[in-house]
């Protein structure tokens, strides 16, 4: 009986209440394309069968962004000389380190053609010296080819050796995009798994039809220490697309252009496991016209380059735009009447940039372009005219310590702050095009760079690139319109070679470990890897306080192993002789700290970051190490020496606050574990303006909690163009905020952050 009722009901349900839930035919077709290509690639046919995908020249390795910590004790720099401390303070948090990375990342882009020949290579070489490629010139170097040079002769001068923390300048740290999964594990080298790849599949957004011809650029983003594959390719056919290998967990910028479509660009794309296809939906875009005029006379500017900056596949462009060859689809020149026309501008928020020799680049306001309907293509949209004004000038001299001029040094000035305000807070496209100008010093050591836009710049001195350059020196400066700013450099060529041996707790050499060397005063840094015998070498280390750190997770995780104070070598440097060598032995201890993170309801979290401070002999807490989840999904820091530690757990990527735990004593070789419940957090918004009420860009904002501990949360501690800096996910509590401008002005305030709320603090800087 019940069987009959059931049959009757089943029939009724399946005939009358069967939902339409099949995937669309377009989706099926798309997946079939992607899946078939993937199967073919997996079987090794992909590479061989392509032929049409042509690789552009390989990109030199990009430097990693150092990730020293986020958190440190109240008095973190007692071991520094007063002058050093003052300098570190003045420079602000890691500004130079970060600036260098930005500049270098840009320099390494294969898409920028205007950089001086050899600059990118020289920079990379310099930053990665001490690695396998840094064989010194000379007979023994020549013999070994590109092998690691044998360990150099006995110790040179070493004056002081201190354990401890890194000062403010080192806290670039927290600015590293957190949570990058481990590319490899430290000891185990698995049988070379295929790197994850990104597949680019372009379709017409309206018809969903695959497009057979498009050009694509990809660029692995700044947090990458090495790019082994060419990272830019020209792809011609969808189904034959070669997958672009991307180191696991790294992020990509991808830009695509196809004739008849608006350019497409996304940043921060992640290559997932396994290979992820990236579906690019191209739209026809919006035709636009506009004018470019001289700000002073109102006359039209003919031959000005106009481009849609928000759609650029580049992260950097010279002030005149002359490095853009060939001209991308979304760029054009003005005609004799100063009029330009772009047929396929991307819909949505855009920022246009115009440039011409004799002027600083000019930008449009942020414009919202409406998508034209397919049935009724609209007439070109007329946009407000862009004004070009006279630019700022930077000039200066490069001299040796003895006062003689240094000729043929290459100087590059780059803006650090992203320009424009396009959807910056809404997570939308943010204009990230960086402008730069460059010059080479003449025989008097002088240089001059013109047509710079107003703003905040990093000046980079590369030495003589013909002679292989020198360790890059950086300074920051602000540029004002129609004003000359002076930036001089000291060509300091006196340096030391640092040769070392990395050992584990038992005294056995540790091979194949990533190490970084940080210059404590200004955030300069370099990376290397120990060889199989645990040896490492850093060439050309200038005098100063340095920290040798162990790095992991693509340099996102760092642990201070040893501090070194390197003094200037005695006697006159002789160009023919090599630098003196300093031998160091670095031993990793065997204590460990691990934590299990729980969400506010007590459920286990898979996320977060732990940072440790360690008490030194004077009882001062110093930054010691930071780590995100390891490959096993554990929050663990191993290799710790015995001592008293304070751990801080953050989980802001999970939208939670932070916890600073009570101090604990770790015995020799002991392991300490904590279960940490991470509370919900609130947000803090700091708005900085000057005495006249104008928003102050690029001020450094530091946050100190009620116990006096300073926190670094987020990628960049500087205020944006609106004078704003936002900290998400602070635990509830009262915080002291200190704002420091590059010019040295300081202001403080305090504010209470409540759970789930956004607290706002307005800070007004006093008159100069």
């Amino acid at each position, binding site marked *: 009986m*019940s069987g009959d*009722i*059931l*049959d*009757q*009901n*089943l*029939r*009724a*349900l*399946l*005939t*009358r*209440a*069967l*939902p339409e*839930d*099949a*995937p669309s035919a377009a*989706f*099926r077709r*798309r*997946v*079939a394309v*992607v*899946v*078939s*290509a*993937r*199967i*073919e690639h*997996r*079987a*090794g*046919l992909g590479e061989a069968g392509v032929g049409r995908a042509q690789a552009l020249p390989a990109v030199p390795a990009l430097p990693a962004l150092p990730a020293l910590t986020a958190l440190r004790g109240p008095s973190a720099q007692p071991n520094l000389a007063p002058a050093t401390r003052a300098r570190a303070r003045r420079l602000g948090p890691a500004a130079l380190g970060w600036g260098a990375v930005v500049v270098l990342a840009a320099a390494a882009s294969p898409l920028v053609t205007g950089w001086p020949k050899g600059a990118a290579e020289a920079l990379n070489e310099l930053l990665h010296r001490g690695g396998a490629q840094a064989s010194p010139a000379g007979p023994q170097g020549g013999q070994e080819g590109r092998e690691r040079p044998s360990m150099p002769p006995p110790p040179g001068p070493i004056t002081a050796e201190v354990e401890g923390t890194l000062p403010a300048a080192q806290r670039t740290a927290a600015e590293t995009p957190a949570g990058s999964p481990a590319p490899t594990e430290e000891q185990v080298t698995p049988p070379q798994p295929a790197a994850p790849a990104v597949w680019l599949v372009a379709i017409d957004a309206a018809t969903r039809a695959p497009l057979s011809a498009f050009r694509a650029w990809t660029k692995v983003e700044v947090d990458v220490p090495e790019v082994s594959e060419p990272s830019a390719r020209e792809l011609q056919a969808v189904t034959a697309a070669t997958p672009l290998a991307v180191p696991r967990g790294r992020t990509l910028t991808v830009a695509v252009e196809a004739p008849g479509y608006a350019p497409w660009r996304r940043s921060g794309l992640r290559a*997932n*496991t*396994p*290979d*992820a*296809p990236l579906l690019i939906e191209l739209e026809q875009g919006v035709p636009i016209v506009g004018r470019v005029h001289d700000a002073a006379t109102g006359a039209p500017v003919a031959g000005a380059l106009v481009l849609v900056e928000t759609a650029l596949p580049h992260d950097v462009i010279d002030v005149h735009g002359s490095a853009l060859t060939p001209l991308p689809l979304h760029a054009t020149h003005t005609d004799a009447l100063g009029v330009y026309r772009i047929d396929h501008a991307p819909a949505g928020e855009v920022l246009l940039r115009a440039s011409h020799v004799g002027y600083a680049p000019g930008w449009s306001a942020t414009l919202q372009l409406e998508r034209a309907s397919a049935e009724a293509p609209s007439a070109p949209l007329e946009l407000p005219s862009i004004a070009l004004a006279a630019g700022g000038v930077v000039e200066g001299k490069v001299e040796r310590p003895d006062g003689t001029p240094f000729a043929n040094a290459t100087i590059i000035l780059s803006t650090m702050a992203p320009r424009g305000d396009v959807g910056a807070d809404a997570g939308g496209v943010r204009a990230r095009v960086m402008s730069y100008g460059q010059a080479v010093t003449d025989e008097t050591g002088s240089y001059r760079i013109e047509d710079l836009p107003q703003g905040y710049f990093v000046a980079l001195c590369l030495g003589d690139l013909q002679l292989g350059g020198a360790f890059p020196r950086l300074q920051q400066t602000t540029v004002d319109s129609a004003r000359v700013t002076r930036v001089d450099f000291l060509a300091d060529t006196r340096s030391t070679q640092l040769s070392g041996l990395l050992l584990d707790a038992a005294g056995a050499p540790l091979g194949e470990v990533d190490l970084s060397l940080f210059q404590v005063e200004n955030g300069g840094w370099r990376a290397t890897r120990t060889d199989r015998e645990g040896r490492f070498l850093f060439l050309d280390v200038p005098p100063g306080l340095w920290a040798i750190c162990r790095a992991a997770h693509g340099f996102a995780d760092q642990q201070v192993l040893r501090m070194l104070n390197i003094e200037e070598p005695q006697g006159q440097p002789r160009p023919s002789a090599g630098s003196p060598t300093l031998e160091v032995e670095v031993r990793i201890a065997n204590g460990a700290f691990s934590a299990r993170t729980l969400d506010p309801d007590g459920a286990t979290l*898979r996320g977060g970051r732990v940072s440790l401070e360690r008490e030194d002999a004077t009882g001062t807490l110093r930054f010691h190490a930071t780590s995100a989840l390891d490959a096993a999904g554990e929050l663990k820091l191993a290799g710790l020496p015995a001592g008293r530690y304070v751990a801080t757990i953050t989980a802001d990527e999970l939208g939670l606050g932070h916890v600073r735990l009570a101090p604990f004593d770790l015995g020799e070789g002991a392991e300490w574990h904590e279960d940490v419940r991470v509370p919900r957090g609130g947000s803090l918004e700091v708005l900085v303006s000057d005495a006249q009420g104008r928003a102050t860009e690029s001020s450094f904002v530091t946050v100190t909690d009620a116990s006096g501990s300073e926190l670094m949360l987020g990628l960049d501690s500087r205020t944006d163009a609106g004078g704003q800096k936002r900290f998400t996910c602070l635990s509830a509590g009262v915080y002291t905020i200190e704002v420091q401008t590059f010019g040295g002005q300081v202001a403080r305030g305090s504010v209470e952050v409540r759970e789930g709320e956004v607290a706002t603090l307005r800070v007004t800087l006093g008159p100069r």
Partner: protein
Amino acid sequence: MLPDPPATEHAQDLALCQRVLAGDRGAGDTLVAQHLDGVYRFLLYRVGRDEALAEDLAQETLLTAIERIGAYDGRASLHAWLCGIARNHLRGGVRRRRPTSIEDLLAQSDRDIDALLARIEHEPLPDEVLERAETAELVGATLSSLPPGYREALLEKYVEQRSVPETARATGRNVKAVESTLHRARKAFTEVFTLLARRRGELE
């Protein structure tokens, strides 16, 4: 747990895996034709009917499967194996966005409707219940939880109204196997449907 489909189907699954391993381009079409719909539907009802998300996850699932195809040993059906991968992707996604179970994702419940639906074995369903969107959603969610063979068997029987011998002839299988599949499909559908209706309606 639901019983696995018969072993003969796994032989087909293994053959398909061999073709994938060999890099046979046509294997992609077969994989999509045979498995995309099932995986997509499985995901669709577990992401609150967010079609775009279900599409993303379905594609990721198939690509993961290709990557790890060597690990498929034929002990479970390929569909079940794929759903396992899909579930992992779902967990990854759920951690970020949607900490809910399938019944929480079903549309707003109506206690009275669910009380009636929960009794499909015992009382005929009235017309007004059959017209409700909640009913259709429950049917879809239930079918998405069953092996695709069960869905086919049920549709053959109740929608196409084919007899067991007819189905057997059309599919080249023996009558006993078809009958047994249908029996299991009917039982599984009823169990899952009743369970989901009870949970959604928060009925005892």
